[in-house]
């Protein structure tokens, strides 16, 4: 039973598909050049960060009937350009033997379709070994730190989700939208209104807290009082998530956009790892905030009340805790934290309308791993998921790294459904 997860099934497709391909970082991309209005052109630029532009690589262009259209070598800027007889489908092939020592191409052939009057720039993914693909142990410390950063930001988003589940039993599928709303509010303040990002983040957190409060006052509180069932609430949260997500799409647009501040920072070397300042600050801020949350849960009256309600709602109500007030506070804290998480995610991966949904499934993975409904479990689980997602890029393609996190979620449910810190009774 253990081995037969859908994950393994998916992994099997993946393994088949992966043959012949590999993770590669040194993307050989064409430099930007204005498209010429007349003929169709194929332009290839070969370069990696270590070797720089690569000269003297033989390139052959053939059309769809297999006839050779152009042939040549890259020049000292690593460039090769071919004029084409017309629009159509072409195959561009590079001679891998000409590549310098240590540089490998994931694929030596690209099939491109060239539209009329277009300049087509096929990209060959070249790897110069600097990022140690496959089992490259040199990359592990770097990925661990990146994973820590990512895990901490998942944790910030997920603490609220977990506390809401713990105190109300609601599996809130609309929590991802709280994350996206925070990031988008900060983006508009930062990019359109020119507010510095730190101030914008503070405002976004206030807005996030307000949205969380509004969630409880306008929707979940009344539903709770009506005695709505958990499944009904689950489907309602899906509806809310869907409506909000596509509303954000209309407001923000379908493309992902970076913040105006802290763009294009260079990475500084710290021993075996290199980090940009914003990554470093992201880790520091996450740690400080999470320690504050932990202190609140541990030391303050409201924090203790939150844990009590999460543990046993009826008993806490009987011992004089105002359960509704505690839940409202949980929503406010959860909303504000989700907004902060959204800004941190936007800082590293750009802001987009569907970032919330992408993160939501990883948050579920984190809190399920840690144990549904426990605050510290969410923390621990999220960090493990973050590290796992980053480390998974050692063996799978970068674009599939979230798949690794989701697979982890399924495996946890098979092996230990109550999570690391959860109690067996919750599984039911």
């Amino acid at each position, binding site marked *: 039973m253990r081995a037969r997860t859908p994950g393994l099934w998916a992994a099997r497709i993946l393994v088949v598909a992966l043959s012949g391909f590999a993770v590669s970082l040194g993307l050989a991309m064409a430099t930007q050049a204005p498209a010429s209005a007349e003929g169709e052109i194929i332009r290839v630029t070969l370069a990696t960060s270590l070797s720089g532009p690569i000269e003297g690589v033989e390139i052959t262009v053939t059309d769809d009937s297999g006839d050779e259209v152009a042939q040549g070598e890259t020049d000292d800027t690593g460039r090769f350009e071919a004029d084409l007889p017309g629009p159509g489908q072409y195959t561009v092939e590079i001679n891998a033997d000409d590549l310098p020592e240590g540089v490998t191409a994931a694929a030596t052939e690209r099939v491109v379709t060239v539209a009329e009057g277009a300049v087509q720039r096929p990209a060959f993914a070249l790897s110069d070994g600097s990022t140690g693909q496959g089992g490259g142990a040199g990359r592990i410390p770097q990925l661990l730190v990146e994973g820590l950063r990512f895990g901490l930001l998942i944790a910030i988003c997920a603490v609220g989700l977990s506390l809401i589940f713990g105190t109300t039993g609601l599996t809130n599928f609309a929590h991802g939208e709280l994350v996206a709303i925070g990031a988008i509010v900060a983006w508009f303040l930062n990019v359109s209104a020119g507010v510095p990002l730190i101030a914008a983040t503070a405002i976004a957190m206030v807005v996030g807290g307000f949205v969380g409060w509004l969630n409880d006052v306008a929707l979940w509180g009344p539903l709770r009082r009506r005695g709505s069932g958990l499944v009904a609430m689950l489907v309602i949260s899906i*509806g809310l998530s869907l409506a909000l997500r596509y509303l954000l799409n209309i407001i923000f647009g379908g493309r992902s956009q970076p913040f105006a501040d802290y763009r294009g920072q260079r990475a500084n070397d710290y021993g075996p790892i290199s980090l940009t300042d914003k990554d470093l600050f992201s880790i520091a801020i996450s740690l400080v905030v999470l320690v504050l949350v932990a202190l609140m849960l541990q030391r303050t009256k409201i924090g203790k009340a939150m844990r009590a309600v999460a543990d046993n709602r009826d008993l806490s109500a009987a011992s004089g805790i105002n359960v509704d007030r505690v839940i409202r506070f949980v929503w406010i804290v959860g909303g504000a934290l989700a907004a902060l998480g959204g800004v941190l995610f936007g800082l590293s991966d750009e802001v987009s309308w569907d970032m919330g949904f992408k993160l939501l499934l990883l948050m579920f993975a984190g809190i399920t791993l840690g144990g549904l409904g426990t605050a510290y479990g969410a923390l621990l689980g999220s960090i493990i998921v973050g590290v796992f997602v980053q480390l998974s890029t050692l063996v799978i393609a970068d674009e599939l790294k979230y798949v690794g996190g989701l697979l982890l979620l399924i495996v946890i449910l098979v092996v230990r459904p109550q999570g690391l810190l959860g109690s067996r009774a919750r599984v039911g």
Partner: protein
Amino acid sequence: MSEFLDILALSVKSLVSQSAVFFALMGVGLNLHFGYTGLLNFGQIAFALLGGYGVAISVSMWGLPLMVGVLVGVIASLVLALLLGLPTLRLRADYLAIVTIAAAEILRLVFRSTPATPVTGATRGLSGFGDGFYALAPFETQRTYDFLGSTWTGREIWACLVGWALVTLFSLLIWQLMRSPWGRVLKAIREDEDAVRSLGKNVYSYKMQSLILGGVIAGFGGMILVLATGSANPDQFQNANTFLAYAALILGGTARVLGPVVGSMILWFIIAFSDAGLAALIRNGLIPDEILSAPDVANIRFILVGSGLMILLVFRPQGILGDRREIVLDAH
């Protein structure tokens, strides 16, 4: 006025078009899961994806005949149901929900990833696998026909005919099953799992059978979708579609044989009407471009569906045909 009639004709066409067929099939499967057994399957689209790609990959990549492709699609959906069900059907309802939604996202991401190109065609998808299907049509599929006030291609008509035949077939099957002892056990599981267990029934096995049958029905939906559109593309199988199917099911009435069918038709009438109506309003300048531009219209449907889902669940969870006493509202 003529513009209004066009919009109306388009909406009437949507009542019976391929989208309505697709969501009706997804909904019939979901009805078995959610309506009759009380399973929260949030990854129904994954079954459709496997069904659709089963046909597409078998025919256009492996060169197999259409019928073998259909078999591959059915087996793929069946295997997915087993894989999802084995670990989660023993756990609480929301675990299945989380696992199925994650599995649907995993499959879509894997199918659209670059390393999967040799098998799935990645983001460009697959096409050119429908010839065997259209060769079966007893009429000319290359020309267009006027029907219900709008123009149909022969291919559309054939795909929809086959689709509605499948919907009828599966609806009859569900109707008969639900009158059988097997169906009564499923409903009993929905009402009180422990009571059924105490009667000596293997609840786990019944849930698994329900998950498999409903998943395979959705697999057929996916096949009709890719055959009707002529291409299999991972973005046809967005996660949000599962919730469109939920909306159709809940609108029509859960735990009613005709609920998902009626719901899907009405849902697509509403969606087509709002899409075409909004587009016309924007074209005529009645809605200024700053508020809503033409590309945004496609997103409005999800906002409508999302809010509709919430309103239905809060005020009328039984939908149009349903019976409130038969609706699962609480986890068990």
